[in-house]
């Protein structure tokens, strides 16, 4: 991709005037400031800006979301929801950070996320299993 000091792999930027429709599969980081409908699948990180409008299921290693998302979000590491974010869908993440003002309408499950999804396949057969974190009971 483009070479700079912080570059590592292919990076995708979707600007405000661009609308993507379909299965968007990437190996690198994705920055969304426009519209996406369909699915987003990346082995890298997803950054959705304040003006982003995503009508898609999302799967990524980590994500920072500040815009609107309608769809299920599966994050293998860390998901951060900014104050301006609006999520309508289920969220599965290992680590979840929800800022004050963020709107989350859907189920939330946390722990290790394991999928059989192959990023290179457009017809992926997703099988997601969850390993809940150990519950520590406080003894009174």
């Amino acid at each position, binding site marked *: *991709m*483009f*070479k*700079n000091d912080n570059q590592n792999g*292919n*990076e*995708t*930027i*979707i*600007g*405000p*005037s*661009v*609308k*993507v*429709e*379909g*299965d*968007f*599969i*990437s190996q*690198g980081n994705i920055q969304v400031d*426009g519209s996406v409908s*369909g699915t987003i699948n990346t082995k890298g990180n997803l950054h959705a800006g304040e003006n982003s409008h995503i009508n898609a299921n999302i799967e990524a290693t980590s994500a920072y979301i500040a815009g609107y998302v309608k769809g299920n979000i599966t994050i293998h590491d860390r998901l951060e929801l900014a104050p301006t974010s609006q999520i309508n869908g289920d969220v599965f993440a290992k680590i979840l950070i929800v800022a004050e003002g963020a709107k989350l309408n859907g189920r939330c499950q946390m722990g290790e996320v394991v999928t059989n999804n192959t990023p290179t396949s*457009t017809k992926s057969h997703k099988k997601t299993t969850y390993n809940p974190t150990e519950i520590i009971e406080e003894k009174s």
Partner: protein
Amino acid sequence: MPYFYLYDTYLQGAAYAPQLIRLENTLTDLGLQGRVGRLTLLKSVKDLVANAIREGADTIVGVGNDITFSRIAEVVAPYNKITIGLIPLGAEQQNIPQILGIPLGILACQVLSSRIIASLDLGKINNQYFIQSISVKGKPNIECNGNYKLQFSSPQEIKVCNLDFTNNDQVSDPQNNFLEMVIKNTPTKSWLPWSTKKSNDLDLSIIPTKSIRLTSPKEDLSLLVDNHRIIKTPANIVVAEEKIKVIVGKRRLF
């Protein structure tokens, strides 16, 4: 390593004669002398390169500018064992030497002598190879990798880059097996006196992809290929991975 030097047509003028003499003397001193062919109206790049390869040349060196190099790359692409070099001559701005780390003029001979070879991707548009980039303006229908489509709210400047500058100092990587599609929306300044929209606001998208299908819903759009060829839509653009070998400099930008 027999060399063949292909001189572009604009070097035939008297202004370039002293430079060419110094160039040939330098090449002889470095032990890089070879046959010379000159592009004319009657002799095309394809004919000259084919003859040179038939006679045993395995390094084709373009003496000229970006367009010279692009023409040679297009012709040499089907040959597997041929290496391409470049000696940039001329006053106009040249992007390819800067990206490949090749200095202008006689100093390029040093790069040729050190012979650092890199395998670069090419692009292919409707069965024609290109090395630098493709530019188009408008609102085309774009389908990428057969998986997703792009839609635009307004006319865009679209550039599909393989070996070219994209945004300011950023350079597309010709070795990553991807083509980088750069989409710019430059809103025009409103004639309304109270408009606060800035004319230099840029809305930039960068999408790496392996294949692109470009069509136009209304009239055919013109695609400018490597700044010298024009092809009309519809167009199928794919990346040809590691298609050519090029002599590059140490100060290349990738």
